[in-house]
């Protein structure tokens, strides 16, 4: 199930800052509210990295638990959401062997899921959804590292340095994998046309 992701309004960010501060002091209720705000983003990132909805839910849980445990050490240098994304990538990366085992189980489920946008207005968004479906299918066929590099760089806009740090690979390796991933994605998209 997919929905649009409008940027948070300043009011939401203010509320979030207050919640972050309370959560840093150990307020579990405040952290729960933060989870309610960010859980879908965390799950989406996890799903894009591991390509499996069941494993993505596990990764999300693990990421949120890690976040809660590390909450007192959150200094606020980056936005809370960015910090949470980083934890999610780490959690997904430590479970990559598990992801490999389950890779082919849920790919169909991801594409077969009913989409409310499609149900509401199929004519106006049909082309975009068709492209997205093909793109999701192609991304799922990449290797774990290639998929992670593409998702972090092209979808989330991370720098090569951030990617190399998160995935424990060199910057050059990140660039090479991105280049190969793009080449492969172009081939896969051409084949699916």
């Amino acid at each position, binding site marked *: 199930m997919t929905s649009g992701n409008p940027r948070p309004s300043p009011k939401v960010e203010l509320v979030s800052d207050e919640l972050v501060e309370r959560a840093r002091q150990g307020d579990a209720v405040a*952290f729960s509210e933060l989870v309610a705000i960010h*859980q879908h983003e965390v799950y989406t990132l996890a799903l894009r990295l591991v390509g499996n909805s069941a494993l993505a839910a596990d990764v999300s849980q693990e990421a949120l638990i890690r976040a809660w445990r590390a909450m007192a050490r959150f200094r606020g240098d980056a936005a809370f959401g960015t910090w949470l994304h980083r934890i999610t990538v780490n959690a997904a990366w430590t479970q990559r062997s598990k992801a490999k085992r389950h890779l082919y189980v849920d790919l169909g489920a991801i594409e077969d899921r009913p989409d409310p946008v499609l149900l509401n207005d199929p004519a106006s968004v049909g082309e975009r959804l068709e492209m997205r479906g093909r793109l999701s299918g192609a991304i799922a066929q990449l290797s774990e590292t290639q998929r992670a590099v593409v998702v972090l760089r092209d979808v989330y806009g991370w720098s090569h340095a951030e990617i190399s740090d998160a995935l424990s690979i060199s910057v050059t390796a990140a660039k090479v994998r991105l280049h190969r991933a793009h080449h492969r994605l172009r081939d896969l998209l051409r084949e699916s046309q």
Partner: protein
Amino acid sequence: MTSVLSSLRSSAGGLVRPPTTWCLLVGLFVYSAESGGRLLPQPLRSHLDGCLRCQAEMARERQLIRGLAAMAGEVEVAPTSLGLIEYGASQIGDNAALPRKRWVLGATLASVSAGTVGVVVLVGRRLRTAPI
């Protein structure tokens, strides 16, 4: 390469000129050129202007980058089971503040114990070496 040629052959309905070295070079630069990282060098740009194959490759790369960027604005709705975390904090225990307090307390106790042992040893030595 064979698949590329066969797909081009089928789409054009006739014989297609095989890719040249210039085409391969454009293929190497196409991502950095499209993502704004680097400009395509002049000789490759000249080749690109006259090569339909490379123009198609460039268009595909552009479409790919746009498609990936568009994914940033979409969110998958998390399954309801993820809501477990909402009350899970109390089950997981307190956050890192508590372990850190415990660590500080443990370190202080260890230092005090070590200091006490040191004092006892020093006093013992002095008593043993003191003139009778």
